């Protein structure tokens, strides 16, 4: 079946794959960071405050990004042909 650019569409959820891959790296490094603080940090209220700040901040920021991404219709598709046509008409950057 020959490739037809006019009918070719990209699902919007592909963008979420990039976000998911980033979250894997983010979680891994967060784990490394927590391990280092717990393993080598000097025991005391300062360390516990830093751990709490890091964990609360991380949960809040991840929650914020999820809340910002949630309203989009991720099942939609984008047609590059239509997008190029709109861009050539100057409709993309208003």
């Amino acid at each position, binding site marked *: 079946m020959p490739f037809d650019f006019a009918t070719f569409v990209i699902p919007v959820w592909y963008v979420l794959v990039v*976000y998911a891959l*980033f979250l894997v790296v983010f979680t891994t*490094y967060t784990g490394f*960071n927590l391990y280092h603080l717990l393993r080598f940090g000097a025991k005391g209220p300062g360390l516990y405050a830093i751990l709490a700040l*890091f964990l609360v901040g991380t949960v809040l*920021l991840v929650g914020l*990004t999820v809340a910002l991404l949630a309203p*989009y219709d*991720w099942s939609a598709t984008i047609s590059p042909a239509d997008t190029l046509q709109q861009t050539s008409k100057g409709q993309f950057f208003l």
Partner: protein
Amino acid sequence: MLHLDHLPNQKADEHIVLFLRRQWFAWASIIVGFVFMTGIPAVAAFYFWDRVSVWLQYPFVGPLIMVAASIYLLSLWLFSFLEFTDYYLDTWIITNDRVINIEQFGLFNRKASELHMGAVQDVTSKVTGIIGTFFDYGDVLVQTAAEHTQFKFKDVDHPEKVKETIIRLVEEYKASHAKEVVAAVADGTRTI
């Protein structure tokens, strides 16, 4: 976890005299960097909101911008905290018996070394620049008899006082050690 009340190989009469980290400029610069790097795009988005709000409504460009912004924000948070961890785990512990030097280089490189007070030959404090002089912070170099063994406490508060404290501890250590030797010779348990 490092227990300050129970250091590794701690002697019965050993106690911590100084616990040092780089001074507050080190972590303040991380916070300023984080605020600056999040603030600039936020201000730019606010200033051009009439355009940005339209872009965010596009079915593909909107999610793309939002995912990019999310990745940027989370990356900044993570890198800032990794930098903070690097700062936080760099510590210098001075007891009445030894100097412990712990340095963290990134996440996967860590160097811990110690030096007994008896091996200290020279202690130097160094304050450079207007800011260092004004806020009284700088480096302290602890040199041993071995040519290449040198501990460097980077950007610590009150370097002159730290130097004086180490010199006093070295003198006390050597004096008590000399007394022990004299007592041992007198007892006949040791010969000269």
